[in-house]
């Protein structure tokens, strides 16, 4: 009885859990479902279902990895049902090769990275965004912002250095996994 009491989440706690993991879950769904609206819709469905099952769930592992695997399974089920959406097979094979512990690392790291990007100094952020998100070449950025190509190169170095330092802990863990 006592343990059950302890496991019951309040709505407020669930809200905090939601806000912390929503974007990671969406990225997992987007691996399989290319449409952003549909992916977000599905992730919200999973959150609702999870909330309803909160009494029955015997979650030994943590709630987060349970959430992410549920999202993944739902997404795979959905594309299998929906034959108009074809997903390349190679994409699915890669997933099979990944072991469970590292399975959602990329998604989690991306969310951390997006957070870290926001903390870059404005000028640096501007240059970095154009290169990283908009795929501009250094020359195009230099033209666009009226800078020398060398300044762009230096600022890009500063951006990567700061991001690497912010993510050091997560990157080290990842690196160890990849070296195995």
């Amino acid at each position, binding site marked *: 009885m006592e343990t059950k009491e302890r496991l019951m989440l309040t709505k407020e706690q669930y809200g905090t859990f939601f806000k912390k993991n929503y974007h990671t879950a969406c*990225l997992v769904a*987007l691996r399989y479902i290319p449409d952003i609206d549909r992916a977000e819709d599905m992730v919200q469905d999973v959150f609702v279902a999870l*909330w309803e099952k909160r009494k029955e769930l015997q979650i030994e592992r943590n709630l987060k990895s349970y959430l992410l695997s549920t999202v993944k399974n739902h997404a795979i089920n959905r594309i299998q049902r929906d034959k108009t959406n074809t997903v390349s097979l190679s994409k699915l094979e890669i997933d099979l090769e990944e072991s469970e512990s590292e399975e959602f690392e990329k998604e989690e*790291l991306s969310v951390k990275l997006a957070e870290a990007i926001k903390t870059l100094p404005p000028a640096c952020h501007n240059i970095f965004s154009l290169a990283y998100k*908009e795929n501009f*070449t250094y020359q195009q950025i230099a033209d666009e912002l009226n800078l020398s190509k060398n300044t762009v190169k230096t600022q890009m170095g500063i951006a990567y250095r700061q991001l690497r330092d912010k*993510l050091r802990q997560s990157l080290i863990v990842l690196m160890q996994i990849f070296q195995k």
Partner: protein
Amino acid sequence: MKSKSENKLDDLVSFFHEGEREDLQEEDYYGKEFKSVEKIYSLREKVTLLAKLKPAESAWAETEDRMIEKKQNLIVQKFLRFPYVAALFILALLGGALGVVTYLSPTSDEQVLLTEIVSGTGEMKQVELPDGTNAWLGSNSILKYNNKFGERNRFVKLDGEAMFDVTSNDKLPFLVNIQKASIKVHGTKFVVTSYAQGNKNDVVLLEGKVEYLRQEHSSFMIPGESLSDNLLTDKITQKKVELDSYNQWKEGKVFLDNNSLGYLVFLMEQWYGEKFVFNSKNLKELTFTGVINKNKPLDYNLNIIELTNKVKFEKNENEISIIEQN
């Protein structure tokens, strides 16, 4: 002076972004530094996707809403073990008992039904939403809301441009979801411009109060104020505007306040369905202030812009080129 290791990192980064390898040595490809730059670079696609998602805050508001809906459905479900079959059965028995069937259908189909209103190129549409709110949809725009709108929520999703005259309702806040951000409304009149390809959100508040939500950022707006969010640089600016002008938005008048020609041309592409080409990149940065009426023919507006003596438009077969005037 930069240290040797700092230079090395610059070179590694430019190897990934520019494919430049001349400054790298054989051993650089095996270092830890290489791996961390590679890792950050490899997440480009996912990080870009993240920027397109709703802020967690408004997604949670939507989900919380669905959690309440579900609870009510569960009560019905307990009553009828197989609601879908039961609904069909009742239909067969009672024939025209439509009221019952529509009441049960949300339980048999857990999907939320979306209503989509789409305006074509150069078109303007007026809709009255189920809660009495009036919306005027600008050119090439899409407005979506679900079947619980007005009852359980007042959420709309907008891609494009619209003016809203929102009825007040203290229990259900009106929320406009646009790319990367949301606007929370408390009984109000305002204009939103947020085209998915435009990389820019503009909000002008005419009456009442709204709150602009973007990730953890939130700003309140007062009547007569405009907010402009550049999605490429994440820069948000707020300033005072002439209100009279925006009240005529419905008549097709668009007010430019130091807007770049690049953006103006983008808007004209949406209104008239024509393709424009800039002969020189610098031209995009020219800024304009004034009134454009999108209900007038394209030539009329091009003429007005040409009168500024800055640019000329030349019509070719499939596109209009923009050239510098000397």
